[in-house]
């Protein structure tokens, strides 16, 4: 549970609005996240969870909704 909340908190800070009610919305489609924000997200996740998330692992089809990000982080934590 903790992972999910922490990811939401990171996303909220980067996007600048509360996304907890749109966990399955594609944030690239609706323009909430751009390349710049994506890098911020990767860096924040790296430092928060101590995981390796290099840019080339970032496949936009696998990271495009808050829920998918949570799943990715959980799988990277192992």
């Amino acid at each position, binding site marked *: 549970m903790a992972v999910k909340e922490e990811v939401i908190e990171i996303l909220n800070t980067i996007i600048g609005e509360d996304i907890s009610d749109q966990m399955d919305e594609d944030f690239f489609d609706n323009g909430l996240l751009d*390349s710049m924000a*994506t*890098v911020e997200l*990767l*860096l924040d996740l790296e430092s928060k969870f101590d995981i390796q998330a290099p*840019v080339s*692992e970032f496949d936009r089809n696998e990271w495009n909704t808050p829920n998918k990000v949570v799943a990715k982080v959980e799988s990277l934590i192992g």
Partner: protein
Amino acid sequence: MLNLQPYADPQYFVYLLLALVPLAVGLYFGKRIDWYEVIVSLVFIFLMFNGKKYHEGYAIIGFMIWQWLLVWGYTLYRKKSNNALVFYFATLLAILPLVIVKVSAPAHWTHVSTLLGFLGISYLTFRSTAMILETRDGSIKTFNPWLFLRFMLFMPSISSGPIDRYRRFEKDITSVPSREKYVSMLEKAVWYFFLGFLYKFIISHYLGEVWLPYIQAFAIDAAQVHHGWTWWLIPYMYTTGLNLFFDFAGYSLFAVATSYVMGIELPMNFDKPFLSKNLKEFWNRWHITLSFWFRDYIFMRFVFLIMKKKWIKSRVTTSNIAYIFNMLVMGFWHGLHWYYIAYGLFHGVGLVINDAWIRYKKKHNVPHNKWTDAIAIVITFNVVMLSFLLFSGFLDTLWFK
């Protein structure tokens, strides 16, 4: 000797499609006939670099040996260690042949460009460089010498893209689409071929070969009288800009269609770019595989580096510098001419302004509706057309020749 340039004339399509029939039949019945595909690809590549283009043929063989050794060597090294300097050096070696060719053209070192240059060198360099970057990240772990060659020399897109990614390509080439899926790919391929014919052989033919020479002649005459300015520049701008789209989008459709027939889902290169509401959106719809290549391998990595090392505090400054850097590199890649570099700078500055506007809109809740959307599309279209006038190099002819 016979020489066949890709998608250049109707004959080419007849040869190509006939040659692909056995492959398509195989795929329909759930089998990928690898050896046949390799032979067909090699024959068509051979015919591309045959006859008067034989020197390009030698150049591509040399280039492939170079990249093959480099990517193989770097993968071996990366298994043992991960020094940043070695990575930068390997990247430099990967782009070196392209850099030499790009520099030798304006410097008139014709013997160098004849020795090393060939049609498609840029697009092959993008593929191998991306592999080195992904190997550094640990996303590509092993070197498969055979798949490397098939990826680099994938025939439909060898000369001008779309630029595929190794891991995506690997998935496609090592599997067979289901019959249902393959049939839908064939349907799309037929549609793309016909749309491509319309774009390239009809629309682009009129724009580029029938009208443009006239407009150009009028413009040059008028500009001589009026110190470099003429109203003819306006029709020239739209004609050359639209021609750029229909010519390249047409070519890209052929490449994607051919690749679908071969059971490979090469990514699309254009997505109605002139309906973009701003410049940022335009770059998500125009020459997509190139723009995404720059986004993923230059822009994002550059931003990642700056932010990780905390070189620049401000988020806005970071993205502004990255935009300009990214687009300038793209400008230089097009060639060492002032108008290509100016084109890159134009788009870099354009993206900076675009971002500032998006921030302003968010902050002040600027209203938007279908009318403002329409205005946005018109403005974006004209800004893009202006950049294509620059890109065309016509101003260079008009002012400096």
